[in-house]
């Protein structure tokens, strides 16, 4: 308050990097108005949208604001891609999931961090007849679905040799062919 007439009327802005500040009328709260690049908040203690960190070290050691790190599985045209403090990725794309969009989401398999889109996450597409409890999820990397007894293939879509009736939904049954009358 420059009109109070004391030597402490004007005080330096409590902002990093020599940022300017403003006093909000009524509440008299001081807000920094020109925080260093990538930072924001009353005291420049937060990261801007698209960045994460803890620039003033409010929760542990100070971490400068960095661009969201999401294994190239976010869209740069989206807003709110990661948590501004922890960096947790919030808008994973390409069927990925996880803190850094670094694994395939439920029901998909492959290499979430591959640079080639075709090697990224593919649908498990488990065969509903051959899969335990008709599950739609599979092993992250290999994509193996959990097959019923005597069912084979990655997606549990076929019976083992010598077995039949995948459609039963209970696994495949032994053919029980007579050894004498069969060709092999």
């Amino acid at each position, binding site marked *: 308050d420059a009109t109070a007439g004391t030597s402490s009327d004007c005080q330096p802005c409590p902002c990093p990097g020599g940022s300017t500040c403003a006093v909000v009328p009524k509440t008299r709260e001081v807000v920094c108005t020109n925080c260093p690049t990538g930072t*924001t908040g009353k005291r420049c203690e937060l990261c801007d949208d698209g960045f994460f960190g803890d620039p003033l070290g409010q929760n542990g050691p100070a971490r400068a604001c960095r661009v969201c790190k999401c294994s190239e599985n976010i869209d740069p045209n989206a807003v709110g891609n990661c948590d501004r403090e922890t960096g947790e990725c919030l808008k994973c794309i390409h069927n990925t999931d996880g803190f850094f969009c670094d694994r395939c989401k439920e029901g998909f398999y492959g290499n979430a961090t591959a640079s080639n889109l075709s090697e990224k996450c593919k649908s498990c597409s488990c065969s509903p007849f051959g899969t335990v409890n008709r599950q739609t999820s599979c092993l992250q990397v290999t994509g193996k679905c959990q097959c019923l007894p005597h069912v084979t293939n990655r997606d549990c879509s076929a019976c083992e040799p010598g077995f039949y009736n995948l459609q039963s939904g209970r696994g495949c049954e032994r053919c029980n062919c007579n050894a004498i009358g069969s060709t092999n």
Partner: protein
Amino acid sequence: PRPDVQPLPPGTHLLFAQSGKIEHVPLEGYDVKKDQAKAVLHLPEKVVIGVAYDCVEKMVYWTDITTPAISRASVQGGEPTPIITADLESPEGIAVDHLGRTLFWTDSMRDRIEVASLDGTKRRVLFDTDLVNPRAIIADPVHGYLYWADWNRQAPKIEASYMDGTNRKVLVKDDLGLPNALTYDPQSSLLCWADAGTHKVECMNPTRSDRRTVLEGIQYPFSMVSFGKNLYYTDWKRDAVVVVDRATGKESDQFQPQKRSRLYGIATAYAQCPTGRNYCAVN
């Protein structure tokens, strides 16, 4: 204690969101009075995406993805008041129907378009199908139309419907990239959009199919408003509001705030409401 609104001086202003605040810059005629730009509202903990203005009650409305919430405050000096806080994930575009006293918004994670009264009551889902990345949304209260854009990279589109959600149709789907910004000018009946993928500003009369390019080679538009002969869009690469003369198709000015960070939603705070009666009031 919450930071309060700095009352807006009389006249027409542009309101835009940047890094924890909503700024205003006065318009004199169509010129941007850069030296008079000032924060209307400090929201230091929020990431504000969409901004809309109600010329009747002189209120600014905004979406924020940090809470997430939809809030409003009087530009004549008032407290920010959240009006919608539940069942939101990534509220982005926001539009006010000043005649029907309703609010429309898009949510890019719930993939929805919703409507509510200006106080947040009577909330209803308008659309929850065929939406992937809905962002900009615009109301034309005089004709009762709603327009929105979806920047889905696989199939970007601009759509329209009546304001009650009936008569939904795709207006544009060819040769679009990332149509982030959309605006409707009631005087010229032109729907214009700015595309961060094709780097173009284009316009069309939505009832005819007379699409034309206004400007090419723009950088990264996020949000746009029309006012009279001009278009004003925020740009993520330039960290600026860019002024485009719609008739000549030329960039005529830019305003770059001192703080360098991305600019999001933009709205016009009119001195007076545009004339016109509501479609529903007439029928």
